[in-house]
């Protein structure tokens, strides 16, 4: 299985280029190719399969890829921390759900797939957007409801989209995106372009009926749909075991195979996503359960400490943090020095601060945007003033 996985040579989200056939380069140990040499790293936790033989724990990667993982995750972490303070400064309105702690899922998934593969997710969508190639400025501008946001400032925190990278966006209602993802997968199957859709949902949404409706349809039609349960162990303020009779979410598809993955290990996520994509294209849907953790509360109004202990959070930070894991990996393989990594983090911090400053300068959308995109222009729609009689305007 590992051999097969390697041949699929996924593209990485990083700006660093990676050759298509990694193994062929291994013999030419030129200095330029040094950071492209293949490293095989074993995941610390084995995959657990449900009705399926799990993939190998040995994951192929390159120094360049590992360094890009570090950087990408550091950007995401920093962005979420900045969003936290912007929310507290009341510059972000609406609701805001932060992803810090779960970065390995977004980054590992991107490393395994192409931008033609679809991703659809819930309202915890900022980092997935960055993973799909969105910029920090677009993200912050959208968070603050500004014109340069990825949805023109009309969506806000829960509604990030990026069509050119097949990012079907953030959805506000728990579990609602899963059937949508299956619809996207059907269109992909029809077009026979070898792409799949990753429909992400949380452990809370795993108890929604529509998941099972969508799963049944996907299995009936053999859709290339990969249902990714980002299990951060708390559905809002309720622990998974209080909300789910069986918290083994990878098994809950019953007739649909599943795979349990250490979602704090970016390499494990990558391996699982390569495996799942291949499986889904050949056989139909599969469930991936990513065992992960969110450091922040469910949303900004949740301090995140009433239903779990602070010790639990700091324990995860110390032992399972996805960024620290990659940092250790880099240091133990001597891919970069500790001070070089610090420099990367400083750089990231500046990048984020600059994007925040730029987004703050950004103007709010034009008032006419309130009425645009409700209907398609020119199809007879008309809008009214408050009294519905005197003031009328044609849709912009």
């Amino acid at each position, binding site marked *: 299985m590992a051999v097969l996985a390697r041949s699929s040579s996924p593209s990485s989200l990083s700006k660093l280029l990676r050759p298509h056939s990694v193994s062929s380069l291994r013999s030419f140990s030129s200095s330029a190719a040094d950071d492209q040499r293949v490293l095989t790293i074993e995941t610390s936790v084995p995959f657990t399969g449900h009705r399926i033989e799990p993939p190998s724990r040995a994951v192929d990667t390159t120094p360049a890829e590992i360094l890009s993982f570090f950087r990408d995750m550091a950007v995401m972490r920093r962005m979420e921390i900045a969003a936290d303070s912007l929310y507290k400064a009341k510059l972000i*309105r*609406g*609701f805001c759900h932060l992803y810090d702690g779960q970065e390995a899922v977004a980054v590992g998934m991107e490393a395994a797939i192409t931008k033609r593969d679809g991703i659809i997710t819930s*309202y915890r969508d900022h980092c997935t957007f960055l993973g799909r190639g969105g910029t920090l400025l677009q993200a912050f501008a959208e968070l603050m*409801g500004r014109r340069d946001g990825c949805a023109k*400032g*009309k*969506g*806000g*925190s*829960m*509604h990030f989209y990026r069509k050119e990278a097949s990012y079907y966006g953030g959805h*506000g*209602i*728990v*579990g609602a995106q899963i059937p949508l993802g299956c619809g996207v997968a059907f269109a992909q199957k029809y077009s026979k372009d070898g792409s799949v859709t990753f429909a992400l949902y949380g452990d*809370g*949404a795993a*108890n*929604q*009926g*529509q998941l099972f409706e969508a799963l049944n349809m996907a299995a009936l039609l053999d859709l290339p749909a990969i249902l990714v349960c980002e299990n951060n162990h708390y*559905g*809002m*303020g*309720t622990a998974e075991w*209080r*909300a*789910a009779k069986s918290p083994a979410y990878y098994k809950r598809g019953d007739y649909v195979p599943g795979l349990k993955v250490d979602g704090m290990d970016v390499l494990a996520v990558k391996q699982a996503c390569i495996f799942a994509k291949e499986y889904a294209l050949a056989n139909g849907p599969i469930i991936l359960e990513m065992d992960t953790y969110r450091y922040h509360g469910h949303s900004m*109004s*949740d301090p995140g400490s*009433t*239903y779990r202990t602070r010790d639990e959070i700091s324990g995860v930070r110390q032992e399972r943090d996805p960024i620290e894991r990659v940092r250790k990996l880099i240091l133990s393989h001597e891919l970069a020095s500790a001070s070089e990594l610090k420099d990367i983090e400083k750089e990231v911090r500046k990048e984020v601060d600059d994007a925040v400053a730029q987004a703050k300068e950004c103007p*709010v*959308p034009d*008032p006419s*945007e*309130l*009425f645009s995109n*409700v209907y398609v222009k020119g199809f007879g729609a008309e*809008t*009214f003033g*408050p*009294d*519905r*009689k*005197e003031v009328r305007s044609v849709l912009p």
Partner: protein
Amino acid sequence: MATAMALRSFGRRTSIAARGFSGSCETEKAAKDGKPINLFSAINQALHIALDTDPRSVLDHLVGYFLFRCRLIINRVGSLFCAYVFGEDVRFGGVFRCTTGLADRFGRSRVFNTPLCEQGIVGFAIGLAAMGNRAIAEIQFADYIYPAFDQAFTAAPMAYSTKTEDSIVNEAAKFRYRSGNEFNCGGLTIRTPYGAVGHGGHYHSQSPESFFCHVPGLKVVIPRSPQQAKGLLLSCIRDPNPSIFFEPKWLYRLAVEEVPEHDYMLPLSEAEVIRQGSDITLVGWGAQLSVLEQACVEAAKEGISCELIDLRTLIPWDKETVEASVRKTGKLLISHEAPVTGGFGAEISASIAESCFLRLEAPVARICGLDTPFPLVYEQFYMPTKNKILDAIKATVNY
């Protein structure tokens, strides 16, 4: 008053029988014995009272065959059944602290968390209520109620079947009718926060009340203040019909009012004239009442006397009170946060145009949300604000 007290204590003992009173329950308008509390505390008080007055009795430890045989008798005595509160995170107090302390006092068997599954919550509540219990289900935000929409429609009229797929609209609303009164889920109350908060964005601000007003068999109730909320919620809980209680979340902390500490109920389907006037009738509900009131005050400065009516129950609504007022003033303005097209204001407008056609001196005005999705930016443009209402008052009065 003594009779009322006696009735109330009798009601405690015969809780099922006491459900038939919504039209005739006592009204306590003067709240002189109350403490100033905010809206979420008032709701919390009401829930405490509801659980307290509808307790689990010794009888319900009896199970199986005996219970089955005794159901008829027990139904009449009403002592087997019990009130429950459940929903997402309610055991810890809920996101708006409305259920704080309930689990500690009444136990985790009566106050419990559910998974994030709105259709499941409401369907479950219908089943629980169909067994004669008072099921008080919470949907965390009214914006999340749509997965449970189907179930709500069922609660009114349905032949008993094992189907559980539909919820509010197909199950709750039709249970009694389609079973020829053999079954009902009258003990069902769905509590859910609705409306704008100033920065809620698309999915934490909507006002979906009019969808539910299209369903005969449901009651839709929206309070305007803490005192109203407590009395109306207790009425909803004890009403023999399934009801949806929309709580104005903007007012949870903002609205503070003296609320009597004791058990009281306010009548459903009875609008309240909260301000007498002669030039124009203003009708609204929930959080919009405070906006309308401000507009009344402003209008009064310009010599326009507004009569302000809080509809309180949307279905079945108190047509008589509105009609009587319009017959007096000859003009009507309706205001709600939900988009104007297809909002409940349209129903009021049509009914009044029909029954008071010859008395109307100006077209009925509707100052409501715009026909756009609830926006993240420009919420103030969307909202039926005081100035918009004031403009419309003047336009209507000077028509």
